[in-house]
């Protein structure tokens, strides 16, 4: 057994930045402003308006995940089969937007989608539009998919590069056409990357904020609601913490179900 000493700083880190904040959330979720035990926060979440926002957020996160997966999967495959130098350049381009401030990117999308924004102007040149782009669900999805795409591409790309080209050739040699290769070789072997990608997109997408306010014409997602309860005009830590807790549980259950899948599929893959 190796010494545990090198791990101590990380234990400390996790205690300070993960465990203690979680305990705070737990505390505020059940304790009101007056310091008494209360379930008020959860009661407020049971409001039909709040449930609608909650479900819509999960639904938008799901759609975002699907869009990202559909774009990222073929992209990761094609990238992984390119020359090494091209791969590096392309990955750099995928990562590049992440070096810019998140808010800045959202404002850029607003400029694009506005009624007299860039897209409508370009469409105008060929005699189309203007269309109502900003303030729609489509705009929210576009912003979220754009924002989270790298988190889907990276894990899938990293498993794809590990799939030996000779495996693909071997399956073609044994009679697989394109779809056969996809179904029998690529999907099973890239599955761990897909699971990671889904997790890394769905979780932050479900609790995202600002995007829907800015691109969805002031529409709120659950992340925005939580933000309001903590830093809004009338802060209510109790309600904010309650919603956070429920959201966390829902995501945790979702991930748990997916991990079950994961284990079933992966049995043959473990060495």
């Amino acid at each position, binding site marked *: 057994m190796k010494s545990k000493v090198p791990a101590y700083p990380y234990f400390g880190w996790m205690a300070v930045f993960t465990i203690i904040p979680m305990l705070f959330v737990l505390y505020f979720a059940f304790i009101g402003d007056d310091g008494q035990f209360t379930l008020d926060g959860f009661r407020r979440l049971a409001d039909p308006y709040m449930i609608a926002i909650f479900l819509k957020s999960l639904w938008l996160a799901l759609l975002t995940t699907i869009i990202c997966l559909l774009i990222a999967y073929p992209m990761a495959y094609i990238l992984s089969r390119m020359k090494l130098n091209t791969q590096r350049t392309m990955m750099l381009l995928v990562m590049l937007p992440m070096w810019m401030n998140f808010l800045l990117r959202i404002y850029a999308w607003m400029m694009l989608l506005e009624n007299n924004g860039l897209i409508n102007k370009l469409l105008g040149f060929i005699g189309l539009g203007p269309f109502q782009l900003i303030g729609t669900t489509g705009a929210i999805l576009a912003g979220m998919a754009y924002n989270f795409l790298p988190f889907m591409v990276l894990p899938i790309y990293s498993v794809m590069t590990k799939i030996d080209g*000779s495996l693909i050739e071997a399956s073609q040699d044994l009679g697989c056409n394109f779809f056969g290769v996809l179904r029998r070789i690529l999907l099973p072997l890239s599955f761990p990357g897909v699971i990671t990608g889904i997790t890394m997109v769905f979780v932050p997408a479900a609790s995202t904020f600002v995007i829907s306010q800015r691109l969805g014409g002031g529409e709120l997602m659950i992340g925005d609601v939580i933000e309001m309860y903590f830093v809004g005009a009338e802060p209510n830590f109790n309600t904010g913490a309650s919603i956070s807790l429920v959201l966390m549980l829902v995501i945790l259950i979702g991930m748990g179900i997916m991990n079950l899948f994961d284990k079933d599929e992966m049995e043959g893959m473990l060495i």
Partner: protein
Amino acid sequence: MQENILTLRDIVVEFDGERILDKINLSIRDNEFVTLLGPSGCGKTTTLRIIAGFVEPNAGEVLFEGQKINGVPPHMRQVNTVFQRYALFPHLDVFENVAFGLRIKKTPKDELNRRVMEMLELVDLKGFEKRSVQSLSGGQQQRVAIARAVVGKPRMLLLDEPLAALDLKLRKEMQLELKNIQQSLGITFVFVTHDQEEALSMSDTVVVMQDGVIQQIGTPEDIYNEPANAFVADFIGDSNILDGIMKRDFLVSFEGQECACLDRDFAPNERVDVVIRPEDVDIVPTQLGIFTGTVESSLFKGVHYEIVVDVSGYKWYIHTTDNVEIGAQVGLKFGPEDLHIMHKMFDGTTNVLQGEVVGEDEIEFLGVRFTRENLGLPVGAPVRLTFSPYDIIVAPEEDRDATVYVESVIYKGRFSELIVWKDETQLILRTQRDEQVATDIGVDFNFDHIKIEPLGEKADA
């Protein structure tokens, strides 16, 4: 006469402007065991990939049973491949790996089970069905790869150096086993290897390749006993290769001796390569020998001794069952039937090429410039440059005069003779260094030794 199952006609393959295969012509008969043999980079694997459908030739035809199959994708071809690193599917167990091709063909369950189990029995892997492929040894993985490729009863099996990763003992066993599998299933095998012993012991036909060109096609006996040129002789087994001159039919002169031989139809006084196999040379008392020399080393090889005898600088390799003492004076003897006479692969003993005067006292050839004092030729005048093989020096250092591509390396007792390409020009050089074919090497020129003659209109008479 059996029918040809596969024919390659004038196949040319180029990658990034480099010619990998240069007009390959090859016919393979049904049920034949054909081996493509050559050093790495000779184009043997590319030939195999053309047959499998992974590489499309830039020119030429691939015929399968008389039908042109250029452009037919791999999954539609009746050939299967055993890959070099096996390429077993890591997410499937042994049974599913073997069953892979049958599942795609939607084989009924009973038949699928029966055929997979039969195949696992054939390759001696019964009881391993549920094992993960990564838990198997190299030899076992190899067997799974073979079973997977032959279970679908392909017309032809392609094997890309399948034994390269196995240790010597296992490799010998697998050679026998492969031959048995080929005979019991009646499938045409096309086998790629760089191991000449493997090629000779397993094949019906050996195809020797070098630098994208087929050097010789023949039975293992033909290839060994009657090599077509010095490259084949050097590559297949050990050889003593000497420069000689064909005096007339049945008489060759080399190393200052004239010897009777069985070869004819060469040009009078043609420069030739003389090949003598080490086991064809007898060690005799000095007074009976054609040559006499000093025993330099003796190595016991199990069945024979490998003895090196120095005859005025040339190192003769001799295989014999009787040992001799190191330092002893011995005679070397051989008969006319032991000499194999071959045309030279490079005509000329020296390099002759054209250059141009590009400045005062400055000449350029093959992109290389050098100066010569008091040249006295006008700028733009063409010149003929002549220099010997010793005037090109292999130089690995950074600041070399030129980079050349090695086409062939033939060991000739005192030195290695290299035929190299610079741009479109062939050059010959001699070196003591050990160089690899199909690689780029740096060379320096001995500019002071280059003989310069004006070409065309003479400079001021």
